[in-house]
């Protein structure tokens, strides 16, 4: 990666943060968005209370904390389209640097957002439902959460590469991805509850492995088990980064060839 590429990436990331700052003030973020996130995790933890099982309550709570992180990162689907709506795509295509770099960086603001939302939910809702946080193992939860979110950003970029082709479907794509994640990735029930084909889809997503790593830490499993799950999360994440790069590149090539950037 050249210095110039890194500079373009840096400016794109800053651009994304500016977008985020225009959406929320710290006050509206805390009273609006965070309230929703805390309620979402509480909603699912309460189902555990309805079932009368403390173990299930904690399972649902941890699963939905991580799902919140994935949900935020899936917003890449929408923010990628914002670039198209801003009318800047043709200019980016005409510039000497590759638009791919800009598109990969301009949504990075969702990563710290996802981290803050998920960590906030864990630290606020967790104690309310008596979630055990074994010391010092719990210290590993935050880096594992960050690794899961960064790996999931690769999948988010892939979603972005789909939504840029069909801008009207941007929210549809992210919502379906999020609810399917909540359904099959071990968020609310173990992955092996589902048939083999569904499990295969679940294990292709980094969030499934990242969540297993976090659950393993909280269950005080051995370091090798945690590392195995973490490695799988990073590997599948890397796979999605590669798929996203290919997908964006194909979009770029097709748009240049057919002149359909603003129409296709």
């Amino acid at each position, binding site marked *: 990666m050249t210095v110039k590429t890194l500079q373009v990436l840096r400016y794109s990331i800053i651009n994304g943060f500016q977008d985020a700052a225009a*959406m*929320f003030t710290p006050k*509206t973020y805390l*009273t*609006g*968005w965070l*309230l*929703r996130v805390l*309620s*979402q995790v*509480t*909603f699912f933890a*309460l*189902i555990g*209370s*309805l*079932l009368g*099982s403390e173990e*299930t309550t904690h399972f*649902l709570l941890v699963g939905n904390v991580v799902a919140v992180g994935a949900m935020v990162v899936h917003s890449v689907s929408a923010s990628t389209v914002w670039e198209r709506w801003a009318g800047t795509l043709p200019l980016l295509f005409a510039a000497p640097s590759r638009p791919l770099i800009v598109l990969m960086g301009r949504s990075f603001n969702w990563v710290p957002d996802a981290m803050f939302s998920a960590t906030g939910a864990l630290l606020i809702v967790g104690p309310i439902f008596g979630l055990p946080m074994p010391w010092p193992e719990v210290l590993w939860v935050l880096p594992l959460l960050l690794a899961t979110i960064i790996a999931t950003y690769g999948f988010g970029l892939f979603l972005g590469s789909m939504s840029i082709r069909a801008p*009207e*479907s941007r*929210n*549809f794509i992210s*919502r*379906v991805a999020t*609810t*399917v994640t*909540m*359904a099959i990735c071990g968020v*609310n*029930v*173990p992955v092996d*509850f*589902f048939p083999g084909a569904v499990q295969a889809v679940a294990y292709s997503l980094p969030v499934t492995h990242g969540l297993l790593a976090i659950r393993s830490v909280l269950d005080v499993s051995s370091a090798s088990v945690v590392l195995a799950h973490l490695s799988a999360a990073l590997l599948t994440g890397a796979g999605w980064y590669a798929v996203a790069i290919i997908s964006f590149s194909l979009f770029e090539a097709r748009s240049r060839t057919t002149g359909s950037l603003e129409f296709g």
Partner: protein
Amino acid sequence: MSAFWAALRFQLQLMRSNPDYLLDIATAPVYTVIFLSIVKHADRPDLIAHAVLAPALITLWWQSLMASGEVIDTDRYYGVLEPLLATPSSLHSIVLGRIAGVTLLSLVAFAESWLTARVLFGITVQISHPGWFAIALIATTAAMAGTSTIMAGLFVRTRTARTFQNSLSYPFFVLGGVMVPVALLPDWAETLSRVVFLSWSADLLRDSLAAAPVENPIGRVMIVLTLGIVGAALGKKLIDELLERVRGLGTLSQV
């Protein structure tokens, strides 16, 4: 009345052409899978009715509040609001017609949930008291339309309301007892939940599915309807005040 029906038809056509309007309807089966898998995994067949009703109520609330809330605001955005106000038809009839279109369409989620349970889990959810279920559903739909007018008024009055649009979901799913009955909430939250019509609707709909006799159904239906009427009145007041102000100042397109 013709304006009401025309607005209803227009809203249904509008929703057919924009995938965003169908978001919640599209994800209702996935939510059904989520809730049913939780209760099946926990081996709690007694909670299957909760799991099938919850996604339908979530869709009804989410879809109605989101789409209805934007009815006036998007008209203003597209520059349709001014000519609309210049017509002899009442804005309230039009807004109510469009909100009714949104709310009616979201009822599809009930069929989706039942169908998902049947096809994917082989579960047929029986309705033990179909009469009370139908009455509760009609009252819920009416109350939802009434409550949605508050959002239509709020969204057009203040930009801040839009920031909180996304936050109107899960706090109300908790307070509305859509999956977990509000009786299980702490006392302060249960008290608060009683002004949310959804909490009465969810309990009543669940009770109408169960074999046991439905307790005090008329009283509960009346509470749902009353809360819906209060919502509609509040929404009307918000819209009326806004219109009076902007007509006086000539600033309709600037609100």
